[in-house]
């Protein structure tokens, strides 16, 4: 299947990457080339084969339900590009 512009635009929206209309076609071509190449997997018979999740080397553990970290609000907020008091800031999202 080949990738069309409308789908490319929809993916960019899903990924929250603001592409200009002028960029869309070149992105579409690059992705379409890669998708055409990975289509070779369609020839592999995977009937009855389970999907590999992670590398399946270790069983996932549950840790003790105890506090291991915390009280580091300033350190966490120090990474943010814009803060106000003890908060991250965003544009108004409710009317």
């Amino acid at each position, binding site marked *: 299947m080949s*990738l069309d512009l409308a*789908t*490319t635009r929809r*993916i*960019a929206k*899903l*990924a*929250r*990457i*603001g*592409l200009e209309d002028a960029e869309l076609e070149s*992105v579409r071509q*690059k*992705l379409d*080339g*890669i*998708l055409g*190449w*990975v289509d*070779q*997997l*369609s020839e*592999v018979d*995977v009937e009855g*084969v*389970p*999907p*590999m*999740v*992670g*590398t*399946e*080397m*270790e069983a*996932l*553990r549950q*840790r003790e339900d105890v506090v*291991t970290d915390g009280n*580091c609000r300033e*350190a*966490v907020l*120090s*990474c*943010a*590009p*814009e803060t106000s008091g003890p908060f*991250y*800031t*965003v*544009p108004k*999202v409710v009317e």
Partner: protein
Amino acid sequence: MLTGLTLTEARAGLAARKFSARDLATAHMQAIARLNPKLNAYITVLPEKDVLAAADAADARYADGTARPMEGLPIGVKDLFCTKGVKTTAASKMLADFVPPYESSVTQRLLDAGSVFVGKTNLDEFAMGSANITSAFGSVLNPWQRKGDEATALVPGGSSGGSAAAVAAGLALAATGTDTGGSIRQPAAFCGIVGLKPTYGRCSRWGTIAFASSLDQAGPMTRSVADAGLMLEAMAGFDEKDSTSSNRPVPAFAQAVGKSVKGLRVGIPAEYRAPGLPAEIAAMWEQGIAWLRDAGCEIVDVSLPHTKYGLATYYIIAPAECSSNLARYDGIRFGARKDAPTLDGIYERTRAEGFGEEVRNRILMGTYVLSAGYYDAYYLKAQKVRTLIKRDFVQAFEQVDVLLTPTAPSAAFAQGENMDDPVQMYLNDIFTVPASMAGVPALSVPVGLDAKGLPLGLQIIGRHFDEETVLSVGGALEDAAGFAHTPTLHAEAGA
């Protein structure tokens, strides 16, 4: 002299007080000042006073008999590992000013072992690339040059290209790398050094900026196989903070080097004789087979039937995980921010302007293969093929102890080559990706030069958690090859 040592030699010299950690640190800071403007191997060089203070503390430990395994050894750190109070960029504009308030588990272990960090090495943006040309802070130059052709700038490989160039050129005794599909092994081969991707789960991923979490694994990039063992000992070990970290004990890896390989069974996978494999690389591979046979190994032909699907599988799974991991760069919590009137507008502008083209394309590719209607056809299918690729290795390792293959399908290529078609660039990882998909350990060892005078590497792949046998065979290969070449651009070449 001090910038040309192995870790093992430097550790012995420090212990015997032939030179001080301050001498070592000073020699490296001078080499960096002289060569880094040309190589661009480091994005950030640590302040000299901090490096010297760490070296002085190491000297004090040698004086009072409390020196640790990596005490006073100058190390480069790939700029993908978060370092507390030191800018960590992932070679992206998105994180150009990011100063982590915490230390990654791997770098903390290296510090606890006494390492002296000299700087943060350049890489492909978010570790996505095979030539170190996607860094927002400029390409890295390979210190090797084609014989009689100094004008052509060669790539160091990627994504750990800065680490490889720094170690090859004498700007660090060793460096950390990370490997998702070949990002330690391919640049190690291109720069004539040793690179080890450990078993998935051997080194903690905590505090290492994520690309594809089921594949990412940290490892050492060094000048000898013994050094790779020594440094891996310091980097590896269980970490509660990484749910996929293995709690198996960490063996004394360095002691595996030098052990006899007599009687070990070495598999030669038929499928790695790829069409179009350059004759020089095929010949080097044959030479490697002969060396190991002479060392007493039994050579066995094996088959890994799904090898040819490794890359296509990788280029579905890795972008899918990348699109998920890189969703965190939203312009709100950390990193760069581009303002816009709406929240979606902030996301879209921040991510369009903060990520370079290759990273954007991989996020978009990953978003596509995970999106409704395509998930089963691409992502689920790739996960099933990945099971088959892993089974190939598990079955091969019922017959043999290790596999021997070339590391990369070419020597270092020129900046500007392979740039237009992403698939051409991806083919660089054809021999390294399958081991990543299976999660098994793999080591690249420099074994010779091609006709143009550029280094070539061979790869040894082992069973899950059997780095020791990989290192033993790597040591035998290293002994037989006797690779003692250094690149044209080197701290010890005429200033």
